[in-house]
Each structure stands twice: as C-alpha cells, then as structure tokens.
C-alpha cells in the first residue's frame, strides 16, 4: 500500500519563474494539506484541500495556489518565485470526518525547491 508520494523530489528554479509540485495521497485518504519547511524551522501550513476545494489557508501570499483532483491528488503552484521560497515542500494526507481532519496525517518525503 503506497503512502504519500510527491514529485519531483528536487527542483531548481530561477527567480520569477513558476513551479508546480504534485502529491498523491495515501490510499483511503481524501484530504491533502501542504506545508513549507524552511531550513531549521518546523513545517508551516500553506493550505488544505478536501472535495476539490480549498478548506483552510495559512499565512501565505496568493502567489501560492493549489488544486485537488477528483482522485484526491493535489498540486501546489507557486508563481513569481522568490529566493525565500527555497524550502522543503511537504504534502500530508488524512481523512475528513464530520468537519474535522482526523489525526492520522501521513507525510510524503517532500520536494526540495531551490530558487536561484
């Protein structure tokens, strides 16, 4: 049973470019959350998708956008990349039940984005 898979694993982009990161959730999970982990920091919540809608959003600019597909997979898009966007981007999947995300967050290995 595959866990959460993310692609690509590493990516180098130039300032001003746009990037798309992809995530396939664990089998049986329907909710996808994206986190940014800068060096030496804990993961910071970007946004969360359930039923193809953004349900919650953290304190990130609207250069960060996302999408969830009918098969529950998700994409994170970042436009107009800045040097400060360099980080590990983590995808976590979970199950939604009665309006709350269950505690079983499963994380992927992440995408290491470097902006030069």
């Amino acid at each position: 049973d595959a866990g959460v898979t993310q692609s690509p694993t590493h990516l180098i982009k130039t300032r001003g470019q746009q990037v798309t990161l992809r995530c396939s959730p664990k089998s049986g999970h329907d909710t996808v959350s994206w986190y940014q982990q800068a060096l030496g920091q804990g993961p910071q919540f970007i946004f969360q998708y359930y039923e193809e809608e953004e349900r919650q959003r953290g304190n990130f600019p609207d250069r960060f956008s996302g999408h969830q597909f009918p098969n529950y997979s998700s994409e994170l898009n970042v436009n107009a990349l800045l040097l400060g966007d360099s980080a590990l981007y983590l995808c976590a999947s979970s199950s939604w039940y009665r309006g709350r995300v269950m505690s079983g967050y499963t994380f992927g290995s992440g995408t290491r984005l470097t902006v030069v």
Partner: protein
Amino acid sequence: DQQVKQNSPSLSVQEGRISILNCDYTNSMFDYFLWYKKYPAEGPTFLISISSIKDKNEDGRFTVFLNKSAKHLSLHIVPSQPGDSAVYFCAALAPPRPLVFGKGTRLSVIA
C-alpha cells in the same frame, strides 16, 4: 506568534540512557498532540500521540506525558538507541484548524 514551542534545538544522549524532549504550547484549544520523527531527505513520520483527556500515553520505548495546566508535554525515549537520532517535531491540533508544528529538536544518540 508561535503556538507550539520546542525551546531546545538539540539534545545529545548516550545510548541506553533516557532522552527527554520537551514542548510547550500556548493555545488552550489544542485537544490532540503528536510527535513526529524526521530523518534527512524524508518526510516526518508519526511516532506517538496523546489526547488532551489523558496525561500519559505509552508505546514501547516511547512515552508522551501531557501537563495541561502547564501547557507542556514531553516525549521520553527509554532506552535511547543510535537509530533514534533524528529531528523530533511536536505538533498540535485545535479542530478545525490544521496541524501546527514546533521548530523541532535534533536528537543525537551517541554509542
């Protein structure tokens, strides 16, 4: 404003001894707490959790203690093994808000 704080960035412990990792939180609405372990080049892996209605949860070598009045939790690892060397993140849930993480503590277990 950081709602989950891990004030020790690093900890070194000898193999076989106890490792104690600490975590403080400020949001009294948190009702579930989790510890994640992270190796380099991997995502965080769930380790152990505790509900706010309990004060202790044990799983093998790992025990988490919760002191609600002090808004403090700790993870005990006994005995510590070299394979436990990793970054440990404390995280908390206040539904319907998403999981909130601390900055992590790097544990080094020395053989």
